[in-house]
């Protein structure tokens, strides 16, 4: 039996989250198949074929999969499930939306946000906003897992998998896509960025947040935010990092005007180097930052921008 990875893609290109989920799947020790459900998704399928460690790319190209609606995609996975010992997805918005539906239809418990695979049935995952790491053993039978993208390295390119096309499965027709408002910026993806520049309520105004964005652009960095900054309207929802936002694992994380609440720290524990700039020297973020600067952002931001050059 093999493991099936639900791919994350935009039809023309594969998201790095998929390559990371493939690495997780490889730890299960079975052949790895990648499922591309999409519409006009040949480009993404071609990229998946090149991922090292992938044996087969299964392509379901049909308009009903254009927006990854949970109900038809879950039915598709269900129609394939008998051939697989495990089903995995990156713990992205799509994975978190679709996989529990699959698990329930298979009548198995899902293991969410897996950060380590110890054996084919023993997994580590965080709970309580990352305050604890649980090791759980899944019962016999199929495993359904979402994996924390930032906890696994991407599978490199250079493979040559087989590609097979499959017909679509039944569409229950329960929901319909209307439209979307992308929060896009042309910046790197948060979950795989090498540098993340994140702002909190300490930035005080949206104008200051633009200042932070200019610094991010100089560094080729992704922009992140605390919940408070998102609630204040400084940044889009998609920028929220933490327990209930996204997890990141950059080489460098700059936390500007962020206090360091446990719900925020839950999302940055895999960052290699953490820098904090905050005017309050008692701020909890300094307890975990590798480099801390006690300073007022109104002074520090312009200095930082200048110091980073053009």
């Amino acid at each position, binding site marked *: 039996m093999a493991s099936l990875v639900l791919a994350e893609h935009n039809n023309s290109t594969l998201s790095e989250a998929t390559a990371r989920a493939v690495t997780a799947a490889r730890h299960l020790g079975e052949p790895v198949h990648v499922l591309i459900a999409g519409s006009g998704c040949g480009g993404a399928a071609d990229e998946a074929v090149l991922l090292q460690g992938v044996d087969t790319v299964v392509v379901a190209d049909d308009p009903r999969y254009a927006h990854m609606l*949970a*109900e038809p995609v879950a039915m598709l996975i269900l129609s394939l499930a008998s051939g697989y010992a495990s089903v995995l997805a990156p713990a*992205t*918005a*799509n994975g*978190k939306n679709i*996989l*529990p*539906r*699959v*698990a*329930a239809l298979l*009548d*198995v*418990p*899902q293991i*969410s*946000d897996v950060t380590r695979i110890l054996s084919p049935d023993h997994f580590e995952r*965080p*709970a*309580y*906003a*990352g*305050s*604890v*790491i*649980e090791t759980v*053993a*899944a*019962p016999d039978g199929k495993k359904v897992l979402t994996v924390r993208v930032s906890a696994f390295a991407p599978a490199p390119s250079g493979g040559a998998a087989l590609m097979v096309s499959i017909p679509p499965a039944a569409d*229950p027709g*329960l*929901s319909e896509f*209307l439209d*979307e*408002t*992308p*929060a*896009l910026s042309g910046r790197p993806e948060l979950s795989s960025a090498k*540098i993340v520049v994140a702002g909190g309520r300490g930035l005080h105004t949206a104008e200051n947040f633009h200042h932070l964005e200019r610094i991010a652009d100089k*560094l080729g960095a992704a922009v992140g935010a605390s919940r408070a900054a*998102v609630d204040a309207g400084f940044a*889009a*929802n*998609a920028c929220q990092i933490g*327990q*209930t936002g996204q997890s990141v694992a950059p080489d*460098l994380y700059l936390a500007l005007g962020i206090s360091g609440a446990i719900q925020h720290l839950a999302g940055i*524990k895999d960052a290699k*180097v953490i820098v904090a*700039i905050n005017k309050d020297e008692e701020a909890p973020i*300094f307890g975990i*930052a590798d*480099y*801390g*600067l006690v*300073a007022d952002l109104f002074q520090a931001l312009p*200095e*930082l921008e200048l*110091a980073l050059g053009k």
Partner: protein
Amino acid sequence: MKVLVPVKRAVDYNVKVRIKADQSGIDLANVKMSMNPFDEIAVEEAVRLKEKGKAEEVLVVSIGPKEAAETLRTALAMGADRALLILTGEAVEPLAVAKLLKGVCLEEQPGLVIAGKQAIDKDAGQAGQMLAALMGWAQGTFAHALDVEGDAAIVEREVDGGLQRLQLRLPAVITTDLRLNEPRYASLPNMMKARKKLVAEKTPADYGVDVRPRLKTISVKEPPRRAGGIKVGSVAELIDKLHEARVL
């Protein structure tokens, strides 16, 4: 239309949890418990639907120990009409929760279920989707805005790249994200009134659901702790250090 809202009694988000000495779980003795914050948002949204005349009744359901009746009373004080407690012992896994809620849905025939997107203790984020699957209903997860019109719900969802709008056929399950609304406080007078209201009780056996855990917790431990580093005196010094550390 009847709206069903499941609410969980969870460790309060301000509490720093302690691991039991034998690493078997979390020490819950004398720990402050509250309604899961995402469920508060769900209750608020249901009550608002009622205030807008789009829902007739809000039924809140909790699955947990006797003390979960307090959580239900908080929801009643926020404006829910009726409360049901399904009495269980220790932690019930999301799939069993979904099966119990399915039993309630079959009995009560709600037009909409509004659930939190995750509980902040286990951080699993599964129950709503699982319930939708078991009922064969549509799901609108991570809701940022919700509107109900006739037999459809329009839900705006928080997704990784921005916001997405879907139309769902009712009945459906919605799960709430942080920015759907700001929950009201349950005022003291309303809490007093809620104390007098009946909380109906059932057991998993009433629904024929086996709630014994299927996942085995082997251990619970602390994550490796990050040591704090050094303080620098200026932006220039910071930049030097980052060059030294080869991250710039």
